[in-house]
Structure formats: structure tokens, C-alpha cells
């Protein structure tokens, strides 16, 4: 009884949050500033990316530095549909996500046999390989990439030129999808199996859990959702080329946002993105003249500070504060 009440309070918070996002475009702050629109879109996009990564890296405990590859495949899926085949983006988005999931499984099957940090290291190498491959693969545009021509704005072509409101609701849908899936997973068997594999693979196996299958499923789902994020990224930028999607830089964002927010927690990816993305966008806007990389320096410092203070990230810090308040309310008990 107690748990059901706690659950519904969590549900209310989640629905309230979605309602809050849904009405943001109606506020003057949003509608008067294209920069604010851009920042909000980025926050939702990057929190979806981080949450996609969190399924594998947080809940299942398998650190992947290869997610920019799946992100990139997703971006190329829609890019190819629009630029090469002259189609609407949707079949390309779906195809890209499916291919990304298949590539992820093919790559990680041998990599999961590696113990401990070797899995993480192997995923590093994969980014470089895919980056080079796409650089010289002329059919997909090579180093020049794919540039969108003009198409009719709207949901059918998933592009907008004047206002970013369409993109905002598009990314909100993506956010609801990715976070909704993770909410579902958290409550169901698969979520328990993910955490069991993270906490002790042999223990999980002794309880009948096929840990290889759990890790591969987590990887496939994580890559599929990362690819959807990549597709949005291509639509939003009207172009795709290898360095903008398949890079260690991009891979690190998946990892760092989640770590900063709180690994294996539901709101961690959102908190991480809500802190890092505005910081990144504002430093770029105001300190951009100093030269590239200032945002990454700040990124790095922030993560070191937070994680040294609380390994469970911002979620850990919030938990600690909430506990302290509860304790003082409880009369020093």
C-alpha cells in the first residue's frame, strides 16, 4: 500500500514535468528568443541521448564509448533517405535505428566476452574505425557529408525553418519515448535483470539470468534509441558529416552527462543535460571567440568536482539533501 502511494507520487511528478515542458513554447521567454529555443531543444535531445546510454552504461553497468557510432548511423539513416533517395525522413529514421541496433549487437557480441575495462576500451576503437570508414565512403557523402536541400517544412518532412517550435515538440516526443521506455524497464523484470548483471554477473547467472542476452538486449535497445536521437540531430542541422556525429567528443557527451547526473538513475540524464547543455551553449556563445574547447574544459572540471564530492552525481547530492531535510523534520532521529 505504501509502495503504491509512493509510485503514484512519482507518476504525478513525471506527468507534471511533461506538462511543464509541453507549455514552455507558450511562454514569452521561449517564443521571443530563438537562442532559448535552441537551448531547450538541446537539453531535451542530450538528456534523451544520455538516457539511451544509461540503459546500458548506468543500469547494466557496461561502459560504452561507442555510442556516437549508433548516433551517427541514425543520422545517416535519415540523411540518406532525404538526400540520396529523395524520400521523407521517416523510413530512414526507422531503418537507421534498426541498422544501429544490429551493428551494436554485432560489435558487442565479441566485446562482451572481454572482462572489466577492456569492453570500454574496445568501444573506443570502434568510434575511430567508423569515423574513418564514413570519411572515405563516397556513397554516403564521404568527408563532405550529406546536405539537405529545401523541403516543405512540417511534420511530414520533419524540418522547420522559421520557428523551432516544431523541433521542440519533435524532441519532446523523443524524450517521452526514451524516458518512458526506461520508466517501464525500471519496474519490470528486464530492469531487475539489468541491475543484477551490473551488480554481479555470476550471481545473476546462478539465478537463471542469461547475462549475455541481457547485455545484448540492453545494447540493442540503447543503440536503437541513440540512433533516433542521431536522426533528430541530422534533421535539426539539415546536414550530417562524419566528424559532427561519429567522434569521441560526441561519445563523451553520452557518458559524461549521465555520470554527472547520476548513473543508473531515472532523472540523472535530465539533470546532467540541464546543467551541462546551457553551460555549453552559453560558453560557446560568449567565450566562443577564445577558441574551441572552452566548453569541454568547463565540462571536465564540473564533472571532476561533482563526482569527487558525490560519485552518484547530482542525483546523489539531491538524495543527500532530501535525507538531511527528512532527518531534521523527524526531530533529530
Amino acid at each position, binding site marked *: 500500500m505504501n509502495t503504491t502511494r509512493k509510485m503514484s507520487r512519482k507518476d504525478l511528478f513525471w506527468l507534471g514535468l511533461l506538462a511543464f515542458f509541453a507549455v514552455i513554447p507558450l511562454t514569452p521567454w521561449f517564443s521571443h528568443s530563438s537562442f532559448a529555443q535552441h537551448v531547450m531543444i538541446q537539453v531535451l535531445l542530450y538528456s534523451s541521448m544520455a538516457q539511451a546510454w544509461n540503459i546500458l552504461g548506468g543500469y547494466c553497468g557496461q561502459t560504452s564509448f561507442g555510442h556516437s557510432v549508433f548516433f551517427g548511423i541514425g543520422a545517416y539513416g535519415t540523411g540518406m533517405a532525404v538526400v540520396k533517395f529523395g524520400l521523407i525522413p521517416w523510413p530512414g529514421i526507422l531503418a537507421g535505428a534498426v541498422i544501429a541496433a544490429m551493428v551494436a549487437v554485432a560489435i558487442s557480441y565479441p566485446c562482451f566476452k572481454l572482462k572489466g575495462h577492456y569492453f570500454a576500451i574496445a568501444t573506443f576503437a570502434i568510434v575511430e574505425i567508423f569515423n574513418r570508414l564514413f570519411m572515405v565512403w563516397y556513397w554516403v557523402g564521404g568527408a563532405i557529408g550529406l546536405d539537405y536541400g529545401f523541403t516543405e517544412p512540417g511534420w511530414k518532412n520533419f524540418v522547420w525553418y522559421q520557428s523551432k517550435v516544431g523541433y521542440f515538440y519533435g524532441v519532446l516526443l523523443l524524450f517521452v519515448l526514451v524516458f518512458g521506455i526506461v520508466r517501464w524497464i525500471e*519496474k*519490470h*523484470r528486464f530492469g*531487475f*535483470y539489468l*541491475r*543484477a548483471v*551490473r*551488480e*554481479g554477473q*555470476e*550471481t*545473476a*547467472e*546462478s*539465478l*537463471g*539470468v*542469461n*547475462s549475455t542476452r541481457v547485455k545484448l538486449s540492453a545494447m540493442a535497445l540503447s543503440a536503437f534509441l541513440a540512433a533516433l536521437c542521431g536522426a533528430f540531430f541530422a534533421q535539426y542541422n539539415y546536414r550530417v558529416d562524419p566528424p559532427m556525429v561519429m567522434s569521441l567528443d560526441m561519445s563523451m557527451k553520452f557518458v559524461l552527462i549521465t555520470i554527472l547526473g547520476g548513473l543508473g538513475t531515472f532523472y540523472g540524464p535530465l539533470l546532467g543535460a540541464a546543467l551541462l547543455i546551457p553551460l555549453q551553449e552559453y560558453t560557446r556563445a560568449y567565450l566562443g571567440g577564445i577558441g574551441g574547447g572552452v566548453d569541454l574544459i568547463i565540462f571536465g572540471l564540473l564533472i571532476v568536482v561533482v563526482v569527487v564530492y558525490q560519485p552518484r552525481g547530482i542525483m546523489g547530492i539531491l538524495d543527500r539533501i532530501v535525507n538531511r531535510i527528512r532527518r531534521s523534520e523527524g526531530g533529530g532521529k
Partner: protein
Amino acid sequence: MALLEVRNLTMKFGSLVACNDVSFDVEKGSVVGLIGPNGAGKTTLFNCVSGFYKPTSGKLFFDGRDVTNLPAYEVARLGAVRTFQVVRPLKEMTVLDNVLVGAFLRGADNETAHSVAEECLSLCRLEDKSGNLAGGLPIGYKKRLEMARALATGPTLLMLDEAMAGLTSTEIKEALEIIKGLRERGITLLVVEHIMEAIMSVADKVVVLDGGEKIAEGTPRDIVEDERVIKAYLGAKFTERLKRTGEVTKNG
């Protein structure tokens, strides 16, 4: 046909022979004790039976099926589930969540899994710890968690590896009560135990290992009188004590 048949099981680590040509049966519905001094090969045998090690030679049959080369999770799915001597709590998960992982083996339905988990928690007297993180439990509780988690999978054969080692005498009594309760539910048990007195009062049969070899097999009464066992493991004094406690448990 016995529920578990161990046939000429040999497990070598390089030149070290941890189990040497061991054979015995575990009958359905019985409690079998597996005893022997430290390093006798008891845990190694468990690891082979539960699919964690591939035996160097020999065969294992569970419920008539050859399980010698099955991976651990398959063996568990068939209903032979083990606990670990060195406890392995899923640390960053609550006690309830630990047990739920086991309970989900028999189906993905949340409600069923929760009711199974809660039943196992209360059977192992962990209900008031269900919200605690497993990593922070005292050792006695961790031992019981091992048992509750394995139990939640709905095993036909439950293999306990020194579930009572390191417990206080009251805790051991409680654990024995739990084991008796399990037997009444029709679960077959293979129990590795260092504490002889404990196992003697519940076992139908005892298998004794020493240096990787089976040196005796029989009822607890026969075992405590077996010359080889006395020499290899018990020591005469211990035998006396055992006989006395045996009388006590029978009379009281």
C-alpha cells in the same frame, strides 16, 4: 532415478585434482549433507554441478537430463539452484530487489514475483530488512539473503554452500528450522556444511569428501562411526561429542 546423479566427476586445476572420480546420488525429497575438511573439494563440486565449472571428466544428470555442459543459467532454469559460500549480495539493490531477481525466473509477472519474493523473505526472516541495501547487511542476514534469493527461483534442488558458517548458535538453529521447512515443502537439498553437528540432525544421507575423493557415504549414524571419516576428518573426541548431541536432539 535420483534427482541428481554425480558420475565419476573429476575436476583438475592444472596438476591439482580438486575432485577425483566422485560419484553419488541425491534422491528426490531428501536432504544430503556434503562434508569434508577445508580444501576437500566441496565448493568445486558445487561449481561443477551448478554449471560454473566444466568438469575435466565425468557426467552430471539432473532430473534424468545430462547437464554436464550446460551453462549456469540453464542449470538454474532447470531447477538446480545454488548459493555461494562467500556471500554475493547484489550490493546496490535492496533486499527485496535481490529476491525479486530470483523470483522473476518463474515468470515476468510483477505481482506473482512480488508475492513469491515476500513469501521467501518471511520464510528466511528477512521481512523487516526488505527495504535495506543488500551491501550493508550484517553477515548473518547476507547468508539468509543468499538462501531467500535462491529459494525465490522455485528450485527443485537447492544447493547450500556453508549457509551456516560464521553464524551464532541461535542463528544456526534458525537456519536449521528454515531447512526443515524447505524439506517439508518438497525441496530436495544438497547442503555443504563445515559444522557437522548442524547437518547431522537434518541429513538423510551424508557424503564425505577428503582431498577431492569420496571417502564415505551413508546415514549420519554410519558416518560418525566410519573409521576412515574419523581418521581423516573428525578425530575421536569430536565423534564422542557428536554422539552425545545426537542423543540430545533425538530425546528433546
